């Protein structure tokens, strides 16, 4: 088997949070990422789909070693990642805060290469090449970030992430701060750059249609756990986990079909993280020791006791 480019093994990140009044402090543990194992092959895009607070951003930062995991392993080309690796880069969500306002574009683009000791001639060559690929001319180099719109800034941020010739890029909600007409430009740019530089992406987003457009595979995250993982087409056309189905039926395109789908709220119990919102949960779910992935066909994995049953009724129905 080919060694995956990035592999995480039971990655965990717990934070302890104190709450309650001054005299009555309580410490609780928040499981931001709870036992996530993913594999990303070369030139592959894995989309992480989830709502705010599900741990998708924490997962991205763990993989880059920007934060230390509580436990678990991250392997890059088969060996554990030490320190911060320049071959792994990140594109942040907000293009307004990710460029230094007091630096010209040229200084911003140069900084990572200077830090990593790349010679001046090589730096110029790389910058020229990148500017071509992101559709800017050379005269933008002397300008400052405030002279650009959000979409243009995001393109510069993308170019900066690519200056060190990474093989893997975490894109953390790169289009959610942008307008629709600009969003398409950036998505197409990311797709083109993937071909040109043979990149792999971990594409983090809450927007299902965006994730589907750019990803080969999708992993759906909820409360720090991956609940369903599979090829993007399988996830979108044949979702099995009740949470994935809820996400898809929440798209305005499907409102009419799910107009009266009931929202459930019950106490959090048992080991299934979705138990308190699941319309299909029963005693079995409540008492289950652990909820393991069930493998359906085609690398489609679902973390649900009833996955097989849902899958078959879908297939036959």
């Amino acid at each position: 088997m080919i060694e995956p480019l990035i592999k995480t093994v039971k990655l965990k990140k717990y934070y302890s949070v104190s709450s309650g009044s001054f005299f009555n402090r309580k410490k609780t543990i928040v499981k931001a990422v709870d036992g996530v194992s993913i594999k990303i092959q070369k030139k592959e895009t894995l989309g992480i789909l989830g709502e705010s607070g599900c741990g998708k951003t924490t997962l991205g930062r763990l993989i880059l070693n920007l934060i230390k995991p509580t436990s678990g392993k991250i392997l890059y080309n088969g060996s554990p990642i030490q320190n911060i690796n320049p071959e792994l880069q990140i594109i942040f969500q907000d293009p307004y805060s990710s460029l230094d306002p007091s630096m010209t574009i040229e200084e911003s683009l140069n900084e990572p290469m200077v830090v990593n000791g790349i010679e001046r001639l090589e730096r110029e060559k790389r910058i020229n090449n990148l500017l071509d690929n992101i559709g800017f001319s050379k005269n933008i180099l002397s300008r400052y970030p405030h002279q650009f719109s959000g979409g243009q800034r995001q393109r510069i941020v993308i170019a900066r992430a690519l200056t060190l010739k990474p093989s893997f890029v975490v894109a953390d909600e790169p289009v959610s701060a942008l307008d629709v007409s600009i969003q398409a430009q950036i998505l197409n740019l990311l797709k083109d750059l993937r071909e040109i530089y043979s990149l792999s992406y971990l594409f983090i987003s809450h927007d299902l249609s965006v994730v589907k457009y750019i990803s080969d595979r999708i992993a759906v995250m909820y409360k720090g756990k991956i609940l369903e993982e599979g090829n993007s087409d399988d996830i979108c056309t044949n979702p099995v986990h009740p949470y994935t189905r809820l996400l898809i039926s929440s798209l305005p395109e499907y409102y009419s079909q799910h107009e009266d789908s009931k929202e459930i709220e019950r106490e959090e119990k048992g080991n299934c993280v979705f138990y308190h919102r699941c319309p299909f949960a029963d005693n079995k779910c409540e008492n289950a020791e652990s909820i393991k992935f069930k493998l359906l066909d085609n690398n489609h994995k679902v973390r649900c006791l009833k996955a097989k049953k849902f899958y078959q009724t879908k297939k036959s129905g």
Partner: protein
Amino acid sequence: MSKLLTVKNLCISAKSDKETVDIISDVSFSLKKGEMFAIVGESGSGKSITALSIMGLLPKNFYISSGRIEFNGKDLIDISTKERRNIIGSKISMIFQDPLTALNPLLTIGFQVSENLITHGKMKKKDALEESAKLLEKVGITNSRERLSSYPHQLSGGMRQRVMIASAISMSPELLIADEPTTALDVTVQASIMRLIKKLCKDNDSSLMLISHNLSLVKNTCSSVAVMYSGSIQESGLCEDVLTNPLHPYTKMLISCLPKMDSSEKLISISGTPPAPSERPNGCSFNPRCPNATDICRKKTPELKEVKKGHFVKCFNLEGNQ
């Protein structure tokens, strides 16, 4: 059906130390009773300013330079502050985009929801709180009685938006303006909030004016729509006309740049960026980004023409676009 709200040739300008810039130019639309109407557009297109002008909440340096806003036949621009106060909050109310900044962090939920009932409904405080609890229940907040004494920071984003909705509908307004009511929320919450707004409007027979950038949300909520770009309406009409058979190149491209769930074709993107209000081009404001722009588009501004009953388009090149 009679017209509830008529906006006619509305122009809004902004004054700064150096210059006066037109923000909104020549915007006209009307709403019938019980109608669900949407304004879509990107940021900076002027959709929120249009809504704020109806509420009389324009920022300090903005002013209405010409045009009329009529509500139930009554002019809303030259009205005295006292009269306006009688209408705003009881007949017209608004749900703001960000529930965190729209609620006062120092006041309890009960106070903020009942405030409207006390001022407009002339209720006693005790009755108003009782009524507020009922309203909170109506918008799907459990333990509503206990919630009355909580503060905004103790609630989640979706819950806060529900509180905003509860206070907005407390007087069963005839017109509900919702400015991007779900943008700050997660998708699953978004769906339930939109369902709630739709249901409440139906129950109260209120009209809804939804401001959004989300085309599919608009398509599935409203019956008619106006597409705004760079401060003016480019295309308007019934949703089924405008969003399924768009005629304006901007609307067409806006639809084609959304990723679709059922296809993975390459997205068509609109090159360039929307112009800032002070840098709008001569002629049609979309011409620098339009693939079919000709000389006339760069010189003259097109007018909003009716191409089909109720379907208006602002473009010279209609034949070329069909």
